[in-house]
């Protein structure tokens, strides 16, 4: 009697929790805050269950609502995160970019990628302006680094002589507390076929009159028009007078204003942002595996240096800071940067799990590069596929270095220390794949429309240290590049990588004979130092080096310490 009563009360509370979950899921369509509430509800739900294997998490009711919710995700894509770094760039009609004071690109729009060859993470001199504007540029850069108060400039561009084009350069603080950035936006009037057609039919223009209009729109100087057209100034003046009478304008100013306004009316569409990955170092090459899969690799350091391979984690990106690049060059090391399957320009191997696919990609890369044996460096979770490769190919790895703590957490009981949203994601991937997919698509949408910071803020929400590092102006371009690398192939990559962290790689550790070194952040909330030490102490070859006051982003925050250990490990090898 008593028992059955208990059962019922539990089922009622289950139902209530489920209702709450569904409610929160609907609300989460609206904004990022509600997304976090939904994750909290899921953690709550998962924790109320004693044995997740014995319970049906995805009830028919839940499934029904998930099916309603999924298509809504795309429809309400514009409902998220109105204040985003990206907004500053998206709103621009011409090429636009956001850069750090030292010229590293945080984000760009498609036009800037084509016209200025600028990509997230790339360092650029921004050699776009005429000589006279360079003082302005320097003053603005100085303001952006906090040493001036010049906030706006209109800088003349060093483009072709027959076009008047300018950049509005503004110093902006896209988010409080994270320093200032430079927004560079080109402004010019665009001539289009539509505009030509319209002028022709409306005013009965001849071909040369149209040509003159186009030239005037570019730069309203008659002498130049004459020069470009190879005719005399008098002829052009006569033609312009005909244009006046055909249009009913009385002066050049009026005519130029008509052309300008028409051009601005006809070009109101802002181009769509596309998700793509472009190696900011411009060194990427592709190697093909046996099964036709493509693995993208770039590199840092010395061109003919001693090789080593970097394997990135789910959120880390595959770039190390510019100082590390220099250090590697000085030390004669060539560090290959792998894009794991599904990331960046590497194809997604659908049939294998993230760990096996990553490990396979390491093999493909080493074969392609002709490296017999080298040191593998993992960025946080990147150490897991590296460990898998080292365990299955013991003679090809000279050592494992993990930048940032990472240890096996396959069971729910191993994850009690994790921040709740990590727990929710990692718990659901195993027990409720449909829900997991929904959450991942949700997060992907958040990043796609709300900007990289939507993801960064959530992943690192419990680590003030990491957020400070990732959002500092110097590191911001790398942070954005990391998200681009993850997002480039759609949400599937993100979904698949969820299984990486819960992979039981403790099984692999006894099979690894080479030294393993982990530089562990002292204040890492995801992989706490004390637990990392306890686990490593079970293996004689696993050494932990403490990064004081560090967390997960030590490759950016503890550059010197990283350099020292990295060179030691790579150069000692072989």
């Amino acid at each position, binding site marked *: 009697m008593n028992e059955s009563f208990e059962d019922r009360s539990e089922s009622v509370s289950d139902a209530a929790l489920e209702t709450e979950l569904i409610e929160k899921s609907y609300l989460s369509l609206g904004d990022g805050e509600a997304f976090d509430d939904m994750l909290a509800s899921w953690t709550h739900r998962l924790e109320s269950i004693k044995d997740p294997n014995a319970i049906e998490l995805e009830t028919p009711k839940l499934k029904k609502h998930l099916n309603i919710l999924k298509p809504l995700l795309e429809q309400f894509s514009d409902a998220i995160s109105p204040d985003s770094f990206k907004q500053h760039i998206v709103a621009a009609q011409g090429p636009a970019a956001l850069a750090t004071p030292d010229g590293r690109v945080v984000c760009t729009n498609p036009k800037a990628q084509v016209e200025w060859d600028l990509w997230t993470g790339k360092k650029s001199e921004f050699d776009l302006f005429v000589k006279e504007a360079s003082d302005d540029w320097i003053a603005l850069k100085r303001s952006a680094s906090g040493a001036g108060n010049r906030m706006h400039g209109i800088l003349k561009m060093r483009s072709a002589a027959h076009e008047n084009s300018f950049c509005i350069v503004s110093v902006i603080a896209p988010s409080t507390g994270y320093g200032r950035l430079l927004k560079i936006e080109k402004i010019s009037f665009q001539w289009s076929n539509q505009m030509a057609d319209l002028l022709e039919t409306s005013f009965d223009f001849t071909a040369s009159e149209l040509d003159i209009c186009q030239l005037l729109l570019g730069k309203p100087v008659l002498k130049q028009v004459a020069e470009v057209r190879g005719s005399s100034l008098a002829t052009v003046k006569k033609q312009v007078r005909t244009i006046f009478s055909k249009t009913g304008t009385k002066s050049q100013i009026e005519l*130029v204003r008509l052309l300008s306004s028409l051009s601005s009316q006809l070009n109101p569409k802002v181009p769509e942002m596309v998700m793509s990955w472009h190696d900011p170092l411009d060194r990427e090459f592709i190697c093909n595996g046996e099964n036709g899969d493509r693995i993208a690799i770039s590199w840092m350091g010395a061109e003919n240096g001693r090789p080593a391979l970097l394997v990135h984690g789910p959120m880390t990106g595959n770039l190390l800071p510019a100082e590390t690049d220099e250090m590697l060059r000085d030390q004669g090391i060539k560090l290959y940067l792998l894009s794991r399957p599904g990331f960046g320009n590497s194809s997604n191997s659908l049939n294998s799990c993230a760990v096996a696919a990553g490990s396979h990609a390491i093999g493909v890369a080493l074969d392609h590069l002709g490296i017999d044996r080298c040191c593998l460096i993992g960025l946080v979770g990147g150490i897991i596929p590296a460990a898998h490769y080292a365990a299955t190919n013991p003679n090809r790895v000279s050592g494992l270095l993990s930048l940032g703590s990472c240890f096996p957490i396959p069971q729910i009981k191993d994850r009690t220390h994790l921040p709740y949203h990590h727990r929710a994601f990692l718990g659901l991937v195993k027990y409720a794949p449909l829900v997991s997919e929904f959450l991942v698509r949700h997060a992907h949408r958040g990043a796609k429309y709300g900007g990289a910071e939507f993801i960064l803020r959530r992943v690192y929400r419990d680590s003030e240290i990491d957020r400070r590092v990732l959002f500092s102006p110097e590191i911001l371009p790398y942070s954005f590049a990391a998200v681009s690398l993850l997002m480039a192939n759609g949400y599937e990559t993100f979904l698949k990588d969820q299984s990486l962290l819960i992979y039981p790689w403790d099984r692999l550790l006894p099979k690894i004979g080479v030294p393993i070194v982990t530089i562990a952040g002292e204040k890492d909330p995801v992989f706490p130092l004390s637990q990392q030490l306890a686990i490593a102490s079970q293996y004689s070859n696993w050494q932990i080096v403490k990064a004081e006051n560090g967390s997960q982003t030590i490759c950016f925050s503890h550059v010197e310490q990283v350099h020292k250990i990295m060179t030691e490990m790579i150069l000692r090898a072989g």
Partner: protein
Amino acid sequence: MSDDRKLDELNLEVLSSTARALSDEDAFDDMVASWDKRLSVSPKQEKDGNLKKLISNLQDMMQLFVSKQRSALDEDISELVNHENSPSAIFSLSLKPVYQNKAWREMWTNVDASGPTMDMLYPDDQAKLSKIIKADKDSPDAETKCLVRILVEDEDTNFCLVSRVSGHSGDDCLHFAELSIGWSAELASLITEAYDVTEAECDVAKLVMKGARPEEIAEQRGSSVATVRKQIQSLLTKCGVSSQVELAQNLSLVANNLNKPSGPMVYEWTDPWKAEKRIIRPGGHILAYSEAGIKGGIPVLIVHGEGIGYALPEQLHRHAQKHGWHLYAIQRPGHGNSDIAENETGFDASCAAIAHLCNAIIGKAAVIIAMHSSIPVVLKLLHEGTIKASHFSALNSVLSLHGDVEKKLPPVQRAWFRMARVSRKAAILATNAGWVLLKKNGIEWYLERYFSDNPADLATTKKTENRELLRSAAAMMLRQGPAALIEDILHYVEPAAKYLPMSDTKISIIFGTLNPLFDKSIVAALQASNPDITVFGIEGGGELIAYSHTTEILEFITKTMSHE
């Protein structure tokens, strides 16, 4: 299933259907149905924590509504004009105004002339425009854009880019965009900082951009031509350009860059009588009304109901001329261009506005013709003696919607009425979802839903001569957002029947016999309550009798008046 769980389920249905309703019109009906179901379960809402939770959940979703609204708007033709800072307007193919933005209206100082008529165009351009209007829209090479020049009140020539765009329900419209890139305070502040120009130079730059010659600039600024030339020279140096033409173009470039979409969107509405006056009513809010007919004649005040009623067919104006009526039409607060205070209920604001118009403007006992939701307001004012009327005609009111009457309401209206009574917030939220669809699908969509159970009225809405008027009437209501509509629905909560017995006002109640809310028992009860009440049933009329039976109604009112 326990009651709580049942309510939880119903709440989920509401939440889910509301989310879907934002993009799917079929789900809109589901939303109404789920609300109806939810509110039938628990009539004692005050103590219902469960409902509070639902409302708070829906409110959290508001964020979503607001952003979604913006994107649904992108497809709306009114967006073409609302987004623009420079003058922009939509006209029907017969050159009747549909939407105009503020800048467009400001372009015409004469209120009557707010649109291009053919004779305002250059002769060459008339042909161009006709070509666009007559173009076969199905033909792939049909021209859909042209440039025309409009002569605005003897001033400069204005270039307009005219585009033929598809409007709602298959009608094409003409979008006029005046081609000018304007000066703004923002532009001034940007160039002041970026080019380090002085205030005087900034002023000169503004005039150069407009195309003024140095002589004109000197005259306008009251300085010498030499000074102006010096200022222009300094501007050219600072901006790095070599001529005034280049300077004007560069400033246009920067201005164009600053010309970003502005503030929250509102439905644009202009008085179809083209005779709007705006005054300030006590409390400092704008009260807008229009006058027509014979100045100094018999004052006749028309008070509109929820949405339908301000525009009214042409017969009204002819009738007013013939019978010497001086027509007044009020825009009740929250509708059209009349403001409502944040802390005012729609009912109180309407009372205050009507009282002010009657006493301060009309100044004597008028014939009052009130429709639908405004009837309880006028009755209360008359009952309390705040205003005097020589005659009061109520068009189609059931006075209040309690008890049996509420049950008879069509489901859509019933759900809304219940929601509004239970919680203004919930009703506004649900209206928001409808609002999004309305903006997407046009006013016809709204009218079709509203009158879905009423074939007589549906037919009235479909008549071409009524469409423009109904569109204007609905736009007047929608201009100030969903809250105004809810306030109006709440007028029916007022116990209006209590105000009916009045000693010194003759009352006639006019209704359509096909209006499902009027049955014999209600009519009999009305007549019994006061011997001064005349009841007139219009055979075959529904709710929209003001449109479908205008002449009959006006003649009836005139006849009743002459008897007195």
